[in-house]
């Protein structure tokens, strides 16, 4: 595995992002913009399920899911670029692995929230629970991502 991570790090993309004076900064900026798009939509929708922003029906937020997906793909691409620049270090970083798992959980739970809202209503108990767990996972993904600079 170590060899594979080393090869990713030595790839053209990895070298560029790590060594170009602007490579890492540009990828990080894109990552922050993508985060705001994906997490922004996730937050208004999950807070709706928790009856915090209840004037907007979940069905209305569905009109912005394409924006959330766009943000997600911006971050998938910028994330791969950032990862390739320090693949060996990140692959063994606990907060990074936690971040990936939290993104996976947050996405699945968000889908379960939408399905539940369709079946049982925007503020049904099950919708609330899935919304709460999804929001917690996504906030956890922001936090563990930010903490990669510290641990």
């Amino acid at each position, binding site marked *: 595995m170590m060899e594979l991570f080393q090869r990713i790090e030595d790839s053209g993309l990895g070298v560029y992002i790590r060594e170009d*004076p*602007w490579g*890492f*900064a540009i990828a*990080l*900026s894109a*990552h*922050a*913009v993508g*985060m*705001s*798009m994906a*997490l*922004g*939509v*996730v*937050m*208004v929708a999950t*807070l709706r399920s928790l009856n915090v*922003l209840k*004037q*907007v*029906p979940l069905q*209305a*937020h*569905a*009109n*912005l899911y*394409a*924006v959330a997906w766009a943000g997600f793909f911006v971050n998938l691409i910028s994330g791969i670029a950032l990862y390739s620049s320090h693949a060996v270090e990140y692959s063994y970083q606990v907060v990074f692995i936690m971040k990936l798992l939290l993104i996976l959980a947050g996405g699945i739970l968000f889908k379960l929230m939408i399905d539940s809202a369709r079946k049982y209503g925007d503020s049904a108990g099950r919708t609330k629970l899935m919304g709460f767990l999804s929001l917690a996972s996504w*906030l956890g993904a*922001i*936090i563990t991502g*930010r*903490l990669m*600079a*510290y641990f």
Partner: protein
Amino acid sequence: MTTNDFLNILGDSWVGEMARGPFWMWPFLENIHFIGLSALVGGLLVIDLRVIGIGPAKYIPMKPALSLIPYVMIAFSLNLITGIIFFCGDPFRYYYNTAFQWKMALIVLAGINALWFWFGEHAKLSTLADGESAPIPAKVIAAASLALWTGVIILGRLIPYLE
């Protein structure tokens, strides 16, 4: 009193000392700042994309969308407060930082833009029917809002790189 005297006062204040306090304080504040920025953009996406009327976003009902304005203000306040604490924690670094200076300029423009929206367009918009197109000036303001805040995020992220 010179600017540098003022920056020294901020740096020596209890707010500055708090920011440089325990090791977890800075990353803790950064996390709030990132969550606040996501919340801010989320609220703006609902309002601004509805007003611009791009794709399916025009089917978001206008009145509920406008009800997110207080949410946006709370998110902005979180980031204003954490931002002021960061500034006091390291005032010389931020004050003389190019990316930070541009970031502040864009936030001021975004603020003026928001006031223009509130006083010039808000009343007209709240009477729009579902799916009805917003007036052109409102669309321009909404597009400017998204562009300015995207710039704010990018410049904020560039603070360590654009000294």
